[in-house]
Each structure stands twice: as C-alpha cells, then as structure tokens.
C-alpha cells in the first residue's frame, strides 16, 4: 500500500462501486447460480426442480463421454502449449540475433495475435476443405490418407495446427521481450564463456527465460482450455466421433444446445476448480518471480 493516502471520504466507495456492482451482478451471482444449479435437476423452462445432491456430477463426470473429453482436452492443451511455445521460442531467439530486417520479421510474426480464434478456425478449415483445400490435397498426395471429417486423429491434427498458428505470435512477443531484457553484460559474458550457440542457449539463455516460459505455459494452457472454443466451433464441432470435444465445448453443447442445465453446471464447476488450480500455480510462480 501507499504510504501517502487520502483519509476517510465517500470517494473510494464511489470509485470502486461500478466495478463491484458489475462483479456482483455478472460474476458472483451467476457463479453462485452455477454452483447451485449443479445440484439440481431442473427442466429447461424452470417449471419443475429437484435437489439431487451430486447426481449431476455422477452423471456427467463419471461418464465415458466426459472422461474422453477430459483426456482430449489435456492432451490438446499439452500439445498446443508445447508446440506454440517451442516454435515461438525458436523464432524469438533467431529474431533476437539478426540485425538486418529485424523489424520486418517482428511485424510479420506478431500480427496474428489480433486474429480471433474462430476467424483462424474458418481460414484453417477452408485450407483443409475436402473440395478446395490445398492442405487436404497436399497431405493426400503425399500419401497420408488424410480425412478430418472421418478420422479423429486427422481432425485433432488440424485443430492443433490451427490453434498453434494462432498462438505463436503472443508467445513470440513475450520471448523476444524476455530475451531483450537479458542485460548486455550477461550476454557478452556468455558469448565469451560459451562458444557453441547450442550450449550457450541451453546453459544460459534458456534458464534466464524460464520464468517467462512458465508464465507462458499458464497462459497457453488457459488459451487451449477456453479460447480454442472458437476454433472448434467452426471446424470440427467436437467431431468426428467426439474426437475433438473439449470440456468447454461440451459445457456449451450440453447446456445451450441440449438444454441440460444441471449437467452443464456441474461440468462448469469442475472447470472452475481446474482454473483455480492453474491460478494458484500462476501465483506461486509470480511470488517466486518477485523474489527473483
């Protein structure tokens, strides 16, 4: 807190009021509702309600569809995070070294941050369209019997590729900033100490980027969990055979398209606990960074 502060006055209440009001109405109340509804069996129109304890959790979480979806979500998040971080790191390290055209590269590599996931999804989907998609034809010509409308692996490959494409830019920006934040003296010393580029990267640069990487991991996992909704909704819609059904997509289809409020709420609560875990992780890390 600041040492110098204003004393008692109604002003802080007025200033913090709008945000609090919005939070109470649009955050706390709905979140409470989500938790409450997860214990209810209620028809879509709200005309009959039964309190059923953990029935919704049992029905939806202990269900093969949910477990498969959770498995896919975890694998999907791991792969999307890994590849988009790896590609971005590679590009950032190289972009940090080049002298010529450095700004041009930077411009060409960061703009995709501003593309909305569903827009990336639609473009990607059309690249893979069985009638006009070049990638579809390319893969098939190369001997890969590629068909994302029929094959779960191929569909997963496609959504992961699109999700990575969309996420490389933001990771690149953070890595580049991280690299540029390494003091020149440290870099100079490293260059003298370690002649091999390869070794210098792994022994000096990479450990220095570790906080950034860890922080990006959290951001990327959150992205893969939630924001890829837009990609999936305009490409595979969770198919084929449920192969690309993420947990968030399932909450949406069950709650909104299927009118199963209780089941959808129970899944939301589980997701909420997952986010909680992620956030705790993130804050432990931030604390460490403060010490560092």
């Amino acid at each position: 807190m600041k040492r110098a502060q204003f004393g008692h006055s109604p002003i802080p209440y007025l200033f913090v009021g709008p945000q609090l009001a919005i939070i109470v109405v649009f955050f706390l109340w709905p979140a409470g509702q989500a938790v409450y509804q997860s214990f209810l069996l209620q028809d879509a129109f709200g005309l009959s309600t039964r309190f059923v304890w953990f029935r919704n959790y049992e029905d939806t979480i202990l269900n093969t569809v949910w477990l498969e979806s959770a498995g896919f979500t975890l694998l999907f998040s791991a792969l999307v995070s890994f590849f988009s971080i790896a590609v971005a790191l590679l590009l950032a390290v190289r972009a940090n070294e080049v002298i010529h055209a450095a700004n041009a590269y930077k411009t060409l590599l960061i703009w995709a941050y501003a593309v909305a996931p569903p827009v990336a999804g639609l473009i990607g989907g059309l690249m893979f369209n069985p009638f006009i998609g070049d990638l579809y034809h390319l893969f098939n010509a190369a001997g890969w019997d590629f068909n994302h409308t029929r094959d779960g692996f191929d569909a997963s490959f496609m959504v992961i590729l699109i999700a990575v494409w969309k996420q490389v830019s933001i990771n690149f920006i953070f890595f580049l900033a991280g690299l540029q934040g390494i003091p020149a003296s440290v870099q100079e010393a490293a260059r003298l100490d370690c002649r091999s580029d390869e070794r210098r990267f792994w022994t000096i640069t990479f450990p220095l980027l570790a906080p950034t990487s860890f922080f990006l991991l959290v951001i990327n996992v959150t992205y893969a969990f939630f924001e890829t909704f837009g990609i999936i909704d305009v490409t595979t819609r969770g198919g084929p055979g449920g192969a690309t059904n993420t947990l968030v997509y399932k909450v949406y289809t069950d709650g909104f398209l299927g009118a199963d409020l209780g089941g959808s709420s129970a899944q939301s609560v589980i997701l909420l606990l997952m986010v909680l875990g992620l956030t705790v992780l993130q804050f432990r890390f931030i604390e460490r960074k403060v010490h560092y």
Partner: protein
Amino acid sequence: MRRKILSAALGAALALSAGPAAAEPVEIQFWHAMGGRLGEVVNELTDKFNASQSEYQLVSTYKGGYEDTMTAGIAAFRGGEQPHIIQIFDAGAATIINAPGAVYPVEDLLRDQGVAFDIEDYISGVRYFYADSDGRMIGMPFNSSTPLLYYNKDALAEAGVEPPATWEEFQEIAPKLKEAGYVALSQSHSPWIFSENFHSRHNLQLATQNNGFDSTDVEIRYNNEAMIAHWSAVKDWLDAGYYGHYGRDWGANQDAFVQEKTAMWLGSSGSFGGLQKSAQFEFGATYLPHWKAVADEPYGTFIGGAALFAMSGHEDEEYKGAAAFFEFLTDPEVQYFWHRETGYVPITEAAYETAKADGYYESTPDAEVGILQLKQPAGEWTRGYRLGFYVQIREVMYKYYDQMLSGEITVEEGFEKIEAEANQLLDRFHDTYAG
C-alpha cells in the same frame, strides 16, 4: 412484460383519445429459425397475415438455427419474456412438450378460440408427430420435410441402371455405378435418415412406451437386428467404394452429389430448390429405399423439420391472435404458397388438393414425391417418436456412427454403446421432467 403493459396502457390511452376506430392491433410475437430464403418466405407470410386482418399485428423474428431458437425461447420463458409462438424442431419437441405447462396445446387453443379443428384434415404422416399420446395436437407442423433419394440421371444412364426402390436393388446397381466411375451413394443426416426414418420405413419400434409418447420412462430400441444389419451393409458399402461418407455436415455430402462424385444422394424433400440451382446435370427424386428382407412393402416416413408452439403465460386477447395466425397458416392457399416457395410439404389434404388442381405436380412432378411418401401406409410405429435430450442422443449417434464407419469399433459394439448412452440420457431426462 413491463414494456408490454406500458404499451398496452399507452395503446388504451390513445384509443380513448382517438375513438374506437383507431384501436391498436394486438401484437403477436413469433420467433422462428428460418434464415436466408426461407426467412424471406416467412416474412412474406407475415405480411400476408397482417394484410388479411386488422386486429392483430404479427411480428416475426429470426432467432438463428433451431437450437438457438429453442435456447432463446427457454431463456425468454425463464425471464418471463416469452413470445406467443415459437418454432421448435423435431429433436427438441420432447423438451418443450414435457415441461409442465410451458405450452398451450395448439388443439386446445384452436378449440378454445372457436376455430374449427379436425386432426383428420392433416396429412397422415404429419398428423401425430407433434401430438401427445392421446392424439391431441400440441404443436402445429410448420415446415415439414421427409427424406428422399435424389439421383443423377446421366450417371444412372451411363451405368445402365434404374434408381433403386429397395436396398437389395441398390446393392445390385452399386458395382455398376462404381464401374462407371461414381461412388453410388452419400447421405446427409444419419440420425434422421438412417435411424429414425429407417424405423418408420420398416414399421419397427424405435423406443419403448409407444416410441416414447406414453411416458418419459422410456428405453431406446436402436440396438436391433435390422439396424445392425443395415449399418453393417453401409460399412461394407463404404469399404467397397459404394458409399461416400463426407463427415456429418449436411452440405459436404450434398456437395459430393452436386460435384458428381456420388451418383445418388439421400437428402430432404426440401433440398429440391437448392439442387436445382447448383446441380449442372439432370436429376430426379424418388422414395427412400427400404430393405425387402425387413418389410415387404415400405411404410410411410416421419416428417423432419419443425412445428409451431403457443407458449403459455399470455393474455386471452393475444391467444385469439395466435389462433388466428394458426388458422391462417392452415388455409390451403397459404399452405400451397409455402409448399411452392420452400419445397416443404403441405400439411393438410386440402392444400395438397389445391396444389394438384393447380397442375403444380404436372410441371414439377418431383415436388410430389415427398407427400406421396408421407401418405404411404401407416403402421403401428410410423406416427413419430418422443424422446428427451434427443439433441444429445443424436450427438451420441453421430459419434458412434463415425467410429463404426472408420472401423474403430464394430457395428455391434457401436449399437451397444449407443443404447447404453442414450438410455442414460433418457433416464436423466425422466428424472428431470417427472420429478
């Protein structure tokens, strides 16, 4: 609601000051899911209705796809802002009909408002699909279609074959079509065409409790011999190159036909207009094939599409308007207009007669195929089905059909899983709605 009261009060005040002649028409809200060209036709219908009388003002609003419209209706109902009339699709029928007191059954509405109603006026295949177990009509069929087989005339001529009436015939001609360079068949909606209508076509029971009409305590009967045999055949056709599976999108499978990759395509009677625009070849339409081994003669099919429901919680005055709109919709001329403009089938016998008398089917014989199919003999199991969480059940079917076709699981395993997961959902639905 508050706004409505306010505008009613305002209307009353205006009426007082201007005298009775300027009485405001009662506003009737109608939410529908008809986009694009279909939406334009709905708007034309709305204008026609509003021009036909001065007491009511119908306001039609497009609310997105079928699911979106249902979701919007549900949320509005929970918020007390529901429209007077809403369009709900086949798979969502159980959700709205089983919710106690969400709708005002259309048959009661019409009778209460003194509009003559006789369910026998409706075409047999259409009549009971949105009715309750006693045969009382709850929702009025609005846009009704039925699955048909479209065939590429040139392709069939090239292979020297006729369009098949049965799947046995299909199996004979498929190799010839393959020789001529075509995949014989694709289809656009496996739950609707290869599951639900498969059962009505062969007069097979689809679920216990009278296909779900009598109770929500129901079990699905998809795991039966005929279905397993059919899907095993489909898988064989796929492996032999007689059947094309282009994913679950309606459009991709239709495009395969339009692009002359497949010689035949199972789509909807409502697909006719679109095909006329996009297909660069001559095509014809005929009945949905059946297995002679299962049913010697085919039975009528179910309708697809959606129905209009009057939602509860409104004023009597407004229901009068809703009834007037329903009455207007069943007018033979209006039905004929709808049928002609959209390709959906007319829902009453009188409308069908009007279209016939006008010589419509002489100029466009394919437009009649759907109605004739719906008028084929009815059986014990052809009136329809009423299953809860059916949107999710269709997802389950899509999922395992995909896996069956890709060879991940056998057909038998697929149906076991479909049965198990569908029954779990039905069980949940029963506990939700009977509770």
